[in-house]
Structures are given as C-alpha cells and as structure tokens.
C-alpha cells in the first residue's frame, strides 16, 4: 500500500500513516513525504508503535517503508492485539465472599491492574452491584477510563434498580440482550 502524503501539513502525514496501518493486519506500507518534519514525525510514529521502518530519499521525496505484523516487530506490540475475544463479567462490587471490605479492596486492585495485562478484554460488563464500580467508586472509574479500545458496559436494569442511571461515569448502558450476546460470542469469559 502506498500512502502519498506529499505536500500535506502536520499532522496529516502521521494520521494518514496511522489509518493505513490500522487498516491492515500485516504487511508493508510505503509512506511518501516531502519534508524533513513529516519524515521525522512518521518515523517517530512507527517507533512508538514498535514497528520497524526504513527510509530512502530520492529528489527530496522520502520513501518510508513500515512493516507491520512481521516477526521483527516488538513482542509488546503483538501482545496488545486481541488474539481472542475475552469478556470480563463483573457481577458484584467485591471479589469473593467473606469480608466485604476486603472484597472491595481486591476489586479496586484487580480493575487497576487490567491495563498491565498483555491481552486486553474486548468488553467488561458490570451487572448487579458491579455497577457501583462505574458510578460511585472513583478509583475504578478512573482506572476504567484509562483502558483504550475496551468496551465498558453497565447493565441498565441494574442501574435503575440502584437508582444510579444518571451517575454513570464511564462506558455505556446496555441491556440484557447485548450482555448475553457478548457472553455467547466470547472465546473466554472471566467471571468476577
């Protein structure tokens, strides 16, 4: 694929590169730019994504080849790709039975650490008292906001039950059908 970004002002060449790379699973794209600035910016973008890039200059035009998905890319980059569809099902505001204070603490820790996992869930679904975590718990709300590309869903019936509909701070409201659909289509469901 050739991305012709000649004559385009910042940040257009980077955005065009980003879109082109997002549109392919793997392969090589060639970006054409005609300014030093755009060349530097596109190389920076490739490096920030853990991709290898190669530059050739001909008559003031830089030809930047960026490879995606080949074994030479960094493992971290491959790891963040969704290899399978994981759905995280959170049915309560605490983890485990017994001491509920301890359970809430464990839940805060769990949610805060999702971002450190190699593979991200495609969706996180909050039901029953789990919806406290998307409405009232400032710690988990903040952590959930940091998760990029993860769908965050709170059960509408549950929000209504606890009168929390207008308190939703992160993600979207969903219904029973969509919750079931996510669970049935998942490769793996993690229940908390």
């Amino acid at each position: 694929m050739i991305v012709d970004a000649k004559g385009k002002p910042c940040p257009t060449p980077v955005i065009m590169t980003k879109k082109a790379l997002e549109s392919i699973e793997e392969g090589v794209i060639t970006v054409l730019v005609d300014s030093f600035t755009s060349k530097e910016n596109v190389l920076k973008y490739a490096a920030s994504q853990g991709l290898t890039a190669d530059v050739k200059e001909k008559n003031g035009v830089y030809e930047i080849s960026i490879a995606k998905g080949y074994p030479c890319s960094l493992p971290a980059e491959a790891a963040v790709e969704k290899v399978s569809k994981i759905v995280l099902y959170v049915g309560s505001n605490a983890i485990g039975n017994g001491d509920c204070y301890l359970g809430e603490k464990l839940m805060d820790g769990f949610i805060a650490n999702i971002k450190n996992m190699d593979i991200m869930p495609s969706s996180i679904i909050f039901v029953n008292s789990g919806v406290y975590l998307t409405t009232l718990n400032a710690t988990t709300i903040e952590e959930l906001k940091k998760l990029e590309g993860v769908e965050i869903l709170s059960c509408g019936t549950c929000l209504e039950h606890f009168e929390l509909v207008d308190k939703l701070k992160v993600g979207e409201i969903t219904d029973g059908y969509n919750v079931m659909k996510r669970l049935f289509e998942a490769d793996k469901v993690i229940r908390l």
Partner: protein
Amino acid sequence: MLVGFETNDDAGVFKIKDDYYIVQTVDFITPVVDDPYIFGRISAINSLSDVYAMGANPLTALSVLMYNCDIDEKIIGEMMQGAVDELASSNCALLGGHTVDDHEIKLGFAVTGFIDDGKIYKNCTLREGDLLVYTKPLGIGILTTAIKGEVISESALKQVTNAMLLSNKKASEIFKQFDVSAVTDVTGFGLAGHAFEMAKGSSVSLEIYMDNLKIFDEAKSLAQMGIIPAGAYYNKQFLTDNYDFVSDEKDNEIIVFDPQTSGGLLIGVSFTDGEKLLSKLIESGYEDSSIIGIVTQKSDKYLVFK
C-alpha cells in the same frame, strides 16, 4: 523610540512625553480549536499578551481577519464576538480593522497599549543570578496539532483550551509588584526560542532544568508518536549552535521548541523575590507556574537544558 526591532522584543515602545509611552504590537493566528467563539477569545488573548509582557495596559485594537467567503457568516460572527468580549473585559476598545480573502482563516489584532509610570519590561535586561519563572504548561502546539489530527483526548482538549484562555493580564499586574528584570511571552518560537532572545539580548546564559518544566502529560506521549508541528523542528534547527541539551529527558527535548499559541510569561526575577512571585502567581490562577531555571554568566552556549 525606546524599543524597536533590534532586540526582537514583544512590542515596540515609543515615548510620547516623560513617563508616558505607547506600546504597539500585532499578531494573528490560524484556528487552534473547533469552536469559533473560543477561537475568537484565544486570538484576542494571544494578541493582548505582547502588551502585557511589556508591563503595559491595552488601550485600542484593530482587527486583522482573513477568510474565504465560502465560510458561513455565522461562524465569522461568533469568532468576532468571542474576540470582542475578550477585548472588552481587558478594557481594550476595538476601533476597526481590515479583512482579506484567504483560503485559511486567520484572526488577530494590532493592539496599542500605554505605560504611564515610565517602567518598561523589556526582554533583554536579565541580570546574572536572576531566577526564571514560567507561568503555563508547555506542549500547547503539540496538543493543537493533535486537535487538527483529531487524536486528542477530551480531557487534554479541555486542559489545553483552558491554558490558552488564561490571559496574561493578571500575571502582568503581579510581576510589577516584584523585583523583576525582564519579561517576554512565549509564543511561536517556543520556550527555547524566546529564552534565547532574552539571553542573547542580555548577554547572559540560561540554565533551564527539565525536571522543573510543567509539560502536559498528553503532549509527551503525542510527541513520541510524531504529532509534532513543523514549527518545532524549525525552531530547533534555528537554535542548533546556541544550546546544549545535557538532560536525560531526551524524549522531551522537542517540547522546549514547541510553538505556543497564547503561551505564558517568562519572567526574570531576583533570587530573593523568586519564591514570593511564584506563590503569588500560583494563588492568582497561574497554577502551573514554576521556577524553571537561573541566569548565569555568559558561557559558550546561550541555553543549557539540564
């Protein structure tokens, strides 16, 4: 004439009579946010800033407007309303202006201000041993580039808009209460470019501490992704022989060259007044102010980033 071209100062200063000077400047910018009303306000604040950086009060303004007739008049109306509201709140009268057809919107003002106490705050009068205070976070140019590329987060959009809407008016009133030697506002040449003009004009060198700079978090990550305006590279290129960068924070180097729209004031203040000025600024709404460096004897480079 008291201040002209020679020292690349923020505005020209002309003496009318003893202790009474007029201050003149012009600046215009292309849109940095999508909302026309807010852009109008930012444009006015940006143009007024040069007057405040000289320690003057604005008096009158003339608009400089460029746009293509295809643009809805309502948008131009909202833009001008934002600018007029901002000028009015700064006690600056809009007398008229000039409009030219152009493919990209540009708006700014030629502002005339006055000094009635005979005190001009130039950019070229730093003293060895002074501390340097800067009043806004850096990375505005990178974030506005990200707005254009539609890759900015909502929270960063809010932060950078607020930073650009923060007028230097009050900061100007504050610095006049302290032992301040020189002031400039940081705009198109970035922190490094404007600091260089101060250092060169004053025949001193500046040590700037990277750890002390306030930088928008998202500007750091966007810079690594290559969302960097061309101006930052030009600024860096221009200063190649005049600075040393010895800090470990290599990733943030480009940010000191980032062009700032409606940037903050860079103030040289005596060592004894530094902390006092800083706390006054912070309690007056300039929360991201910090002491970023010191003025030293002139060495072989004008700027050293540590």
